[in-house]
């Protein structure tokens, strides 16, 4: 018996090798797409690049990313360096965006701000992706009572007023995290001190609250996947549950994962800028797009361009990410209409 269970075949089976016998019908809530309709990955990318809006937004995102990640390497200024005697300069050749009231070059600060905003967006989305995918996959695969309980918990988390809790979290975590980072010896934690505890609070909030949408989408897909024949085959060959989820279920959710992550990035950037605008996000002297807008509010009568620059970068970035996410969803022929922006 044991021998049979551990038997591993050396031929690998494709989906096409199995004849579909189980034509079970699902209600609309459970099943929103036929698995066979999912286009191949490269095919989806092909559709994506053929779309003008998607191609343009990819280009703009790349340009902004280059601006944010390569710019600071080229520029001779840093985000914290104060040039004495060069305060409040208007835009010129040496300082294309001028300098602020403390004599810091605004262009470099804008680069760093964009970098921080992008990083926060990507990292939060990855956190959400990991938690949401595991939760959704487990819930969907086990189905029945486990699924029921897990989804009620998700319902509960979904109804918690998110922004209120995020603001609270960022206030509460500030002091303890600050002490932790400053007292710790490890270089890894010291780097976080630079970003400030507000950012960690944002990550924590995403990990606690925002995985629900992702988990629901993945669960819906897994409910379809688990009835597929290759899962039955894997079970027959003696795969454990963990192995099936890891090797068969999750790789088949790739398209859903890509789309939800891509739609999550702009909403994370959105939230971060909102918090930083209220003065709760990234701590000085590090900056983000939201805190740049907040700083510029003080001088908006005389230095309007300081306000316009981060606003434009923020809006263009979010717009392009939104468009890209939408087009990706179309490209993957993704039936799910619910958008992440709601959350």
């Amino acid at each position: 018996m044991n021998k049979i269970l551990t038997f591993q075949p050396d031929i690998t089976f494709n989906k096409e090798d199995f004849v579909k016998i189980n034509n079970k019908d699902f209600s609309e809530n459970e099943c929103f797409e036929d698995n066979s309709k999912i286009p191949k990955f490269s095919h989806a990318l092909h559709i994506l690049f053929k779309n003008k809006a998607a191609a343009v937004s990819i280009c703009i995102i790349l340009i902004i990313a280059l601006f944010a990640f390569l710019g600071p390497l080229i520029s001779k200024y840093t985000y914290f360096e104060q040039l004495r005697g060069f305060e409040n300069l208007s835009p010129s050749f040496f300082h294309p965006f001028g300098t602020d009231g403390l004599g810091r070059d605004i262009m470099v600060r804008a680069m760093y701000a964009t970098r921080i905003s992008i990083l926060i967006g990507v990292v939060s989305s990855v956190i959400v992706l990991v938690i949401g995918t595991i939760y959704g996959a487990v819930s969907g695969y086990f189905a029945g009572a486990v699924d029921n309980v897990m989804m009620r918990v998700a319902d509960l988390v979904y109804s918690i007023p998110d922004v209120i809790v995020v603001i609270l979290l960022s206030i509460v975590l500030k002091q303890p995290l600050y002490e932790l980072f400053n007292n710790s010896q490890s270089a890894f934690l010291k780097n976080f001190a630079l970003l400030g505890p507000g950012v960690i609070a944002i990550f924590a909030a995403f990990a606690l609250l925002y995985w629900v949408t992702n988990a629901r989408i993945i669960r819906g897909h897994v409910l379809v996947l688990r009835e597929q024949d290759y899962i039955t085959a894997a079970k027959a060959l003696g795969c454990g549950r963990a192995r099936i989820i890891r090797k068969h279920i999750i790789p088949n959710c790739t398209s859903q994962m890509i789309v939800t992550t891509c739609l999550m990035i702009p909403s994370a950037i959105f939230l971060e800028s909102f918090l930083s605008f209220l003065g709760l996000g990234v701590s000085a002297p590090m900056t983000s797009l939201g805190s740049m807008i907040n700083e510029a509010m003080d001088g908006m009568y005389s230095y309007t361009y300081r306000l316009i620059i981060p606003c434009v970068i923020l809006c263009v970035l979010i717009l392009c990410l939104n468009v890209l996410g939408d087009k990706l969803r179309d490209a993957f022929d993704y039936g799910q209409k619910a958008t992440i922006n709601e959350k």
Partner: protein
Amino acid sequence: MAIYIVKRIFQAIIIILFVTCITFVLMNLIPGGPFLSEKVPNAEVIKNLELKYGLDKPVIVQLKNYLTDLSHGDMGVSYKIQKNRKVTDIISETFPISLRVGMIALIWSTLAGISLGCVSAYYKGSRTDRIVNFLTSLGTAVPSFVFATVLLIVFCVKIKLFPSIGLYSVGSYILPCFALGFFPMCYITRLERASMADELSKDYIKTAKAKGLEENKIIFKHALKNAIIPVLSYLGPLAAGILTGGIAVESIFNIPGLGKYFILSITSRDYPLIMGTTIFFAAFIVAMTLIIDIVCAIIDPRINFAEGSKKAA
């Protein structure tokens, strides 16, 4: 149906209790108390203050006391911002202001969103549709606080058309409400356009056309009824979004609403006021979602009550 409503109300109460407990415990985790300041008061004074407000007891006992008081509608008194004033008084004074601005924003954004969405779905593919589509995708990329600052610069600083501070005249309502409702308006337009276009392509519309019904009746009596449901179920999250977006917009336009007090209370660590505003915000949002869900369930007979909320679909 009745079971569904009871279940949802029960769920809502659990959420509010949960948020209350989380807030309470979180706040007590912050090192330092509300009475510490640069000028450190006498230890005796602090002790007496703590005794007065019951802060000397263990957290669990404090939580129990707070919950008992809360069930009587008592949220304690503010420690710092408006000393010894009842939190409920502060909320009842400032919330109507937030509510008024929020309601105007909610109403105009919903009405404008639905009509724009219908127009754009009806003329799908035309120039109007493309312009609306472009503008709304632009609009969903602009956070409300960015839009509010831009409005402030253009209309208060450059053109000097509207007052920039406070709420003293009708004119001063225009900008905050417009700023607050702009993002939801764009979002609703997109939502309505998608669902209307979906409805218009269905068979029952063809049948209605085939039997010679007027266009007006087809759109307003048949298609709109079905196409409005996604917008309706978005109203719950929308109310929450407007309320929280109001926090930033209120601070930009200097409106003395509840959002401003929320931020103030947090930065000055006024425990009862933080608790009060958080619970109030949470309860309001949860209640809005609850009402909208129930209304949706009554209007749309297709909702499956056994499954709980339709949001999952």
